[in-house]
């Protein structure tokens, strides 16, 4: 049985420390620009902060991975290439990439740098994974959140010794990642190019007769009654009118939580468990990392799973196991 690494998010140096102190095996971060898919206001790392963060993590036996997982702008690859160069220079343990051209650059320029394939590349089958592993030496692939546990197990059998990493907690993309232009259609800001989905700059909360209306770029995404839990207006978690009714057509405001199915994912041969949420605060990071640290340790030691309630930090107070169970589809 592989002991899966726990891969934890950090949007700031304080969150990085919080993750390491809470038991993270690896922390993943991004630079403060559009080279990563959490290019949110006030978030992310300067070069100096990354250097200090790597020192802090390494001193405590944890690794730091740098996500450079947007798609470089045509004619201007320098910003992305510099992010790869600086990650290698500062001693990052791996870079997480999505764009074929940038992966090709990294493999040629830094043959010693460990490469992970970002979920944004949406490699959803063994042949796609083999493409990145054989041509560029990618060591690990973060699987898109579209696969069932049996499908993940089948992929692991086919692609070994390439490792797979799956999301175990946090915000859930319901579309295949890196293959969704809903946000740019509404706002003009592209997750793939600008690193932001449903950007805060386009979000407004408006008072209505019965509560709050959330809008994205002028489109009403949801309405909440006075006592209803609210949500951030992420496009695919909104309420829409279709087929003659109003519903959460794509997905409810909900968070992925796989605590209860960790044994199944470990048996499926997954090498690493990823927690989403670089945009969340360090209180979230500490709570979730501790919960998963305890749970993974319990499973590996043959103990029963601890009963941990993460309701208070999930979106809409709701949880799902997402695509890992076929009924979700």
């Amino acid at each position, binding site marked *: 049985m592989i002991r899966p690494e726990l891969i934890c998010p950090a949007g700031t140096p304080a969150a990085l420390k919080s993750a390491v102190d809470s038991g993270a095996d690896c922390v993943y971060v991004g630079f403060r620009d559009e080279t990563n898919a959490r290019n949110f206001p006030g978030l992310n790392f300067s070069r100096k902060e990354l250097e200090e963060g790597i020192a802090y993590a390494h001193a405590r036996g944890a690794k730091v991975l740098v996500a450079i997982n947007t798609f470089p702008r045509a004619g201007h690859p320098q910003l992305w290439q510099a992010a790869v160069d600086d990650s290698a220079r500062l001693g990052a343990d791996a870079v997480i990439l999505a764009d074929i051209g940038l992966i090709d650059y990294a493999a040629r320029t830094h043959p010693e740098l460990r490469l992970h394939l970002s979920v944004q590349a949406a490699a959803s089958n063994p042949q796609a994974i083999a493409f990145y592993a054989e041509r560029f030496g990618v060591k690990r692939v973060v699987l898109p959140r579209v696969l069932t546990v049996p499908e993940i197990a089948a992929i692991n059998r086919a692609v070994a010794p390439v490792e797979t990493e799956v999301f175990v907690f946090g915000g859930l993309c319901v579309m295949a990642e890196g293959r969704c232009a809903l946000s740019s259609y509404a706002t003009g800001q592209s997750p793939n190019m600008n690193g932001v989905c449903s950007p805060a700059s386009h979000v407004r909360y408006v*008072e*209505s*007769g019965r509560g709050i209306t959330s809008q994205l770029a002028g489109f009403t995404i949801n309405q909440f009654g006075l006592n209803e839990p*609210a949500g951030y207006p992420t496009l695919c978690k909104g309420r829409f009118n279709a087929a003659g009714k109003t519903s959460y057509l794509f997905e409810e405001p909900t968070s992925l939580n796989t605590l209860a199915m960790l044994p199944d994912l470990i048996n499926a041969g997954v090498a690493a468990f990823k927690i989403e949420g670089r945009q969340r*605060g360090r*209180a979230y990071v500490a709570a979730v990392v501790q919960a998963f640290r305890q749970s993974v340790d319990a499973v590996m030691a043959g103990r029963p799973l601890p009963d941990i309630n993460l309701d208070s930090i*999930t979106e809409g*107070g709701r949880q799902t196991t997402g695509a890992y169970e076929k009924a979700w589809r």
Partner: protein
Amino acid sequence: MMEGPNRAGQSKPMIPPFSPVLLLGLALRPVRPALLQPVFDHLLKVVRSRHPDILERLEVYGERSVCIDPIDLPFALILEPDPTNPRLTVRRFVDSDEVHATIRGPLETLIALAEGRMDGDALFFSRQLVVEGDTEVVVALRNAIDGAGIDLVADLTAALGPLAQPARRAAGAVMDLVSSLRGSVETVRQSFIAPALQGAASRDARLAELEAEVKALRKATRRGGVA
């Protein structure tokens, strides 16, 4: 209903708190905001020297002002995060038009948020916080403050020198008191505001009818072939 600054017609967090902080707020009502200004000048100075990275993270939002409105206190704050000349102004009334954004919630929640003890998204999801206006600057402020690792009590007392320890204990005692009284006060709060909410419900029903009518008209116009 008892209210602090001008909040008529503004949205409120889900649970209007009737907490010990509110009692403190009532006690502070006669105090002119100008008398409190030096406290906040000092706070800003300390935070600025201990956490210079906050303003650095807010660099591109320097010209956007944010109203921080503790709904259980009779005043609100305006933060202007200009990296060279930041200001934190205390005011009795803040009109939403004066600022780019507003964050509104009980004082305890706002402090927990500032200290990273509670998750901002979680607070918002559960409606303990309300955000209005420019969401981007609010998110930036949240991220910058969370990333700094602030401990407000420590920050304030650090500047007091030899008086620090007693001040820290006193501040801690106040927060403890606030927490312990919350439960009993909740009962009082319910009996105060329940009737008001009932009146609001019937108004909302009428409003819903009107909204539905407008919607139907709008749909008819659009589907009527205006390409």
